[in-house]
């Protein structure tokens, strides 16, 4: 048996796989941010709060209405996405003629409100949400015990990421979207309702965050602060990847999850800083980010 830097290869495979699982969340969240940024040109600071809402609405659905996990996967993104649509119509749409910074400030305020309300309503100790029975248990892969649920997280995330990429880069609707990003006036002139498209895009981005929240509910504690710290890491992911492409957001998300997983083995104390260090290096070498176009 050979060892790599004192770590047996089995353990290393295990950690790589775990990194990939965390990367699934990064990818889903940075994808949502990228989609919103692409069309609305705002950084959605309330993305973390909306991810948290996803987990909470899933919990509420189960507790009050008896909606099981599988139903929640579809219903919750729709519900939370609908709140996103309302927010966009009532507030964000008033800011398009202004500096993009106002969008950031507005969504920051919204994040505070959402987190505060959930804290008042549900406390902060966290709420239990069980893994659906179909996915409980796990598989022994030889080098590690892989819970079935985690495997499902990777699969679901890959499916959604690929689906989004395909919809935006390869379909007619996506073509309209991309065109509207470049020149909304011209696209509007072709008879396409650009404002509605923008609204729905925001709703879709928020729904992606909520979807990630539902995925997270069974494995992380469902509490009002669950998105607050995560969002900053995802910001760093976004800066590293650059906002150039959808594919870039996805690849960076998964990639950084793996890098973070590796630091947890070799130097666990630094694992939370690793992404920020990489960000500093990327900024020095390639200020526009790995996949970014220079603005």
């Amino acid at each position: 048996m050979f060892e790599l830097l004192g770590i047996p290869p089995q353990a290393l495979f295990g950690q790589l796989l775990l990194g990939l699982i965390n990367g699934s969340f990064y990818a889903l969240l940075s994808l949502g941010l990228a989609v919103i940024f692409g069309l609305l040109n705002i950084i959605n600071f309330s993305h973390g709060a909306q991810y948290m809402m996803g987990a909470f609405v899933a919990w509420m659905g189960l507790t009050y209405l008896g909606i099981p996990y599988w139903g929640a996967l579809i219903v919750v993104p729709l519900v939370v996405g609908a709140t996103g649509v309302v927010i966009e119509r009532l507030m964000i749409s008033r800011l398009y003629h202004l500096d993009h910074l106002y969008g950031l400030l507005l969504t920051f305020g919204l994040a505070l409100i959402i987190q505060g309300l959930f804290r008042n309503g549900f406390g902060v100790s966290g709420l239990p949400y069980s893994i659906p029975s179909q996915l409980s248990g796990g598989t022994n892969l030889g080098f590690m015990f892989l819970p079935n649920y985690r495997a499902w997280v990777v699969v679901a995330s890959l499916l959604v990421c690929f689906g989004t990429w395909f919809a935006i880069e390869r379909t007619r609707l996506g073509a309209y979207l991309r065109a509207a990003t470049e020149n909304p006036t011209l696209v509007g002139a072709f008879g396409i309702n650009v404002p509605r498209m923008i609204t729905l895009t925001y709703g879709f981005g928020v729904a992606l965050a909520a979807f990630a929240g539902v995925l997270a509910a069974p494995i992380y504690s469902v509490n009002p602060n669950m998105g607050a710290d995560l969002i900053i890491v995802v910001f760093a992911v976004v800066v590293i990847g650059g906002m150039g492409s959808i594919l870039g957001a996805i690849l960076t998300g998964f990639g950084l999850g793996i890098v973070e997983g590796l630091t947890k083995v070799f130097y666990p104390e630094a694992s939370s800083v690793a992404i920020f260090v990489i960000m500093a290096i990327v900024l020095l070498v390639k200020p526009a980010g790995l996949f970014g176009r220079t603005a």
Partner: protein
Amino acid sequence: MNFKTATLAGLAAMLMTGSAMAVDVKLGVLNDRSGIYADLSGEGSVVAARMAIEDFDAASKGINVEVISADHQNKPDVASTIARQWYDEEGVDAIVDVPTSSAALAVSEITREKGKIFLNSGAASTDLTGAQCAPGTAHWTYDTYALANGTGRAMVESGYKNWYFLTADYAFGHSLEANTSKVVEETGGSVVGSVRHPFPGTDFSSFLLQAQASGADVIGLANAGGDTVNSIKQAAEFGITQAGQALAGLLIFITDVHALGLETAQGLVLTEAFYWDLNDDTREWSARFSEEMGGSKPTMVHAGVYSAVTHYLKGVEAADSKETEAVMDWMKSNPSQDQVFGEGSLREDGRHLHDMYLFQVKSPAESAGDWDYYKLLSTIPAEVAFMPLEDGGCALVE
């Protein structure tokens, strides 16, 4: 002039009530009302303080007690601002509860500066009665040493000898790990390794797998709050407990177990100073408590507030004044006795001594319903539960 009126008023009060002089006491319950510790302290501590005042029947003994409360948001700067203002402007005589070690240490320093009394129930740091002990500070309910000592010793004695620590990478986690390691090694166990995770963390699977690979008998969770909850949740998910390793929570409250659910938390071993279902007294008290709190049972922090306020009021009654030195002297030289902790005593460094209990979390099958969570494994007598006086390094001790 002021002095004269005060004396006259005192005289009048004396004449009216016969023997006792009227004392106005103002207690400030300062704790977390919105953050991570709101459930284990928060409004419940205010309720507990009020219950202590009612049960003591302070009014008829000529002691008028007023209780005010505020939220320190677990921030030491907010806590110190409020504490200063309470002492300087509001005429608060004693501050009660204060979870979060950083906030508690800040309040303790201000209490020392202003010559007042601080009855801490919610914080964990042994420094409150150690390196930073203060003449007016009493640390009532628990501390990191008591928890580490209780859980560490008991686990080793029941055969879990090899430990692996999952430690939150900051001062609190380090000290919890160090305290427990010491106990484990003293009682014949050994520490096979540890991993430090960033704080706060969300994904612990990687660290848990490292812990599993170490082959230790028990994984000690030297972290707190959401980190502990997530570690336990994920340990269950990765089948770590099913594979035969035990989990030891080094700082965990009944509210955390409530949040986790028994399905996930079952089998966990932990130390607490109080559990509602210990005896008839605690059951009766807890029933009254939960009536006021919408059904939730008290935590050990709530119980500690009740016990501390009770003993404090006895001190005020005996000293016939609220003067800090007189009250603290009485409190330290007389045993405490109340419905929640039973008998106890306050040591000269400010550490309150009482029995601690080692519990194991029940499985869903064993539980009779909501809040029926613990089974008692053993009682740790007050004499050995807390850090010995000479190890604390408190300057008040000659």
